[in-house]
């Protein structure tokens, strides 16, 4: 049973269609990337999943049923627009928001200590939120998102504003959550994060799905018939190569339709040249998106 099943949802605001007939599913044990440029409809889609706004048509099933007050306790949601009660202490904030997810105070305090320690925030437990830096606040928000051990974790731009150390920390925790069997939805417009973490993706643009599926398969599908080499010596003329593109530190060889990368490698080796690096060129998600959507959003 999929953890999330979205069926043909549509949502319009005033004269703009924000989400247009979108369908996808998310399984247990995976990190699912919801990607697209700013204004593509990612946050609106998530808000409909969280039952914060209602779709005009279509439906959302979470853990096999329509979202209820009880099943909300099985979700952890870190919205893009996020904050905390500035006058409350870290522990009081965690206790209150976790209690709204059905946890009792004793369990919250026990788990909070564990997560605060894991994230290096334990010394700040008694501080007021307004005394923390923005990054520290985000770590507390992340702790609140996962403290109740949710089945589904939805994170909207979770790395925005985080320093590299905390970004890596969060990534490790996300991978751990996936390995524990949780479903994680990662919404972002930073494609490199998605390439690093996600198993499957849904790419949306102007509210419509433009790419959906396994990340490796998608990259394979959009792979251009070219190889990347780093070598010493003269390259010369190579049969089957129609074009050479020189980049900083490597050369990209564009192959004709009848030549495979293996044949090019054999021909290069036969010339006796020293090859330091040889790989099949795969396009980045960014390049794929530009190809599919035909516009630059970075």
């Amino acid at each position, binding site marked *: 049973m999929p953890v999330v099943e979205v069926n043909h949802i549509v949502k319009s605001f005033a004269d703009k269609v924000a989400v247009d007939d979108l369908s996808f599913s998310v399984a247990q044990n995976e990190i699912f990337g919801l990607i697209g440029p700013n204004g593509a409809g990612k946050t609106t889609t998530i808000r409909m999943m*969280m039952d914060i706004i209602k779709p005009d048509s279509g439906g959302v099933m979470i853990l096999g049923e329509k979202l209820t007050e009880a099943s*909300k306790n099985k979700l952890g949601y870190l919205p893009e627009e996020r904050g*905390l009660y500035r006058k409350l202490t870290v522990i009081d904030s965690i206790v209150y928001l976790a209690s709204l997810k059905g946890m009792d105070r004793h369990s919250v305090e026990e788990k909070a200590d564990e997560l605060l320690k894991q994230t290096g925030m334990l010394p700040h437990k008694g501080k007021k939120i307004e005394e923390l830096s923005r990054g520290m606040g985000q770590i507390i928000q992340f702790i609140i998102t996962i403290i109740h051990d949710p089945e589904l974790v939805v994170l909207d731009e979770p790395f925005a504003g985080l320093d590299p150390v905390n970004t890596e920390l969060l990534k490790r925790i996300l991978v751990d959550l996936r390995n524990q069997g949780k479903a994680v939805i990662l919404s972002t417009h930073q494609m490199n994060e998605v390439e690093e973490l996600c198993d499957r993706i849904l790419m949306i643009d102007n509210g419509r799905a433009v790419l959906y599926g396994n990340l490796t398969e998608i990259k394979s599908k959009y792979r251009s018939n070219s190889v990347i080499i780093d070598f010493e010596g003269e390259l010369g003329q190579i049969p089957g190569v129609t074009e050479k593109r020189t980049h900083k530190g490597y050369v990209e060889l564009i192959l004709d339709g009848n030549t495979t990368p293996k044949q090019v490698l054999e021909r290069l080796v036969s010339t006796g040249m020293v090859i330091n690096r040889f790989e099949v060129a795969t396009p980045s998600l960014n390049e794929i998106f530009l190809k599919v959507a035909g516009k630059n959003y970075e």
Partner: protein
Amino acid sequence: MNKTLLVFRHEFRHTIRRTGFIVLTLVPPLLALLGIGIFHIVSGITRPPAEVTEIGYVDEVGGFDQFVTQGNITLVPFDTTEAATEALVAEDIKEYFVIPSDFISTGIIRRYTTQRELGPPPATTVAIEDFISSNLLAGRVPEATAARIKAPLNLVTTTLTATGTVAPEQGGYANLVIPGIFGALLAASLMFSSIYVLQGLGAEKENRLMEILLSSVSPRQLITGKVLGIGAAGLMQVAVWVAATPLLLNLASSSIGGFMSTIQIPPNLLAVAVVYFVLGYLLFAVLSIGVAAVSSSVREAQTLASIFTTWVIAPFWLLSAIMTFPNSPAWVVLSIFPFSAPVMVILRLGMTGVPPWQLATSIAVLALCIFGGLVLASKLLRTYMLMYGKRPSFGEIIRNLRRA
């Protein structure tokens, strides 16, 4: 625990721990206590001394030689002003006065003292007046008539009902004190409670907490818990004030005495005050939710909310007009207009009373407005709570409400 209860508990605790709330709860009773204390100290300082004071006088008319003992004041005759001045300088007497030869035609009494003062002390004035009038009337009219001339009447008014029976509420300034106090406390608690709702919801929007909360609770649970939690804190504040009022009145009666001792809290006023607090709070709370939903910051929300919170204190601006023209139809309108009704009704109850039909209409209009306000606030919350940045224009709000 039920999520509405969790929100209720959080809001109640959060509100009663606020410095502003604690100060506002304690300040009115403490100020009243301070006022009574100051009155006690000042009256102790200015109270006429228990020992006999001697005041001299020079009688240039003749015949003013009886009734020289006036309470603690003894009047000592002198033959000349020089002799009286000498005694004053020697501090044998506290002061002296002269009854000039043309006193009967002019009424002028000349008073001489070494003290620098704003005016003659009331006890001295009363003593001299009584000495003069008693001597003027002595032997000319019977003693009882002389007493009536000195204090001609004591006007005792009895208010009758439409059927001619004695009305239970007899009016008077003493009866205005309690509604005045209750009105002021009601206005303060309504304004501050609605500000707490405004600040609470506004801060949740400003601090981007709304979406996190709505992923755990429904908007209905959030609004209900918040309004009831903050309302319970406001009610607790009112309860502290109401509990303190009889104690302070007893203290004031024993310290100040006079008409303060005639003040009583009518039970029906207490019941009406509680009804109007609950209805008034609910109305202002739901409107505060709507205002907070469309505002981009707490400050902006407070400015917008002043459109309706100003009406709460409006009856106090009109207090002297209400006292001068208590039966004006304008006050009936303000008793039914939902924003001014709670305080206006309480004030009028102390002055002229409020006919039952006006009370019923006022409560019905308030209840209808609460219902309408709730529908409006829910729509505004759903539409605008997750919209950040510039506040929508009035036209946009109307368009979106029609669509919602």
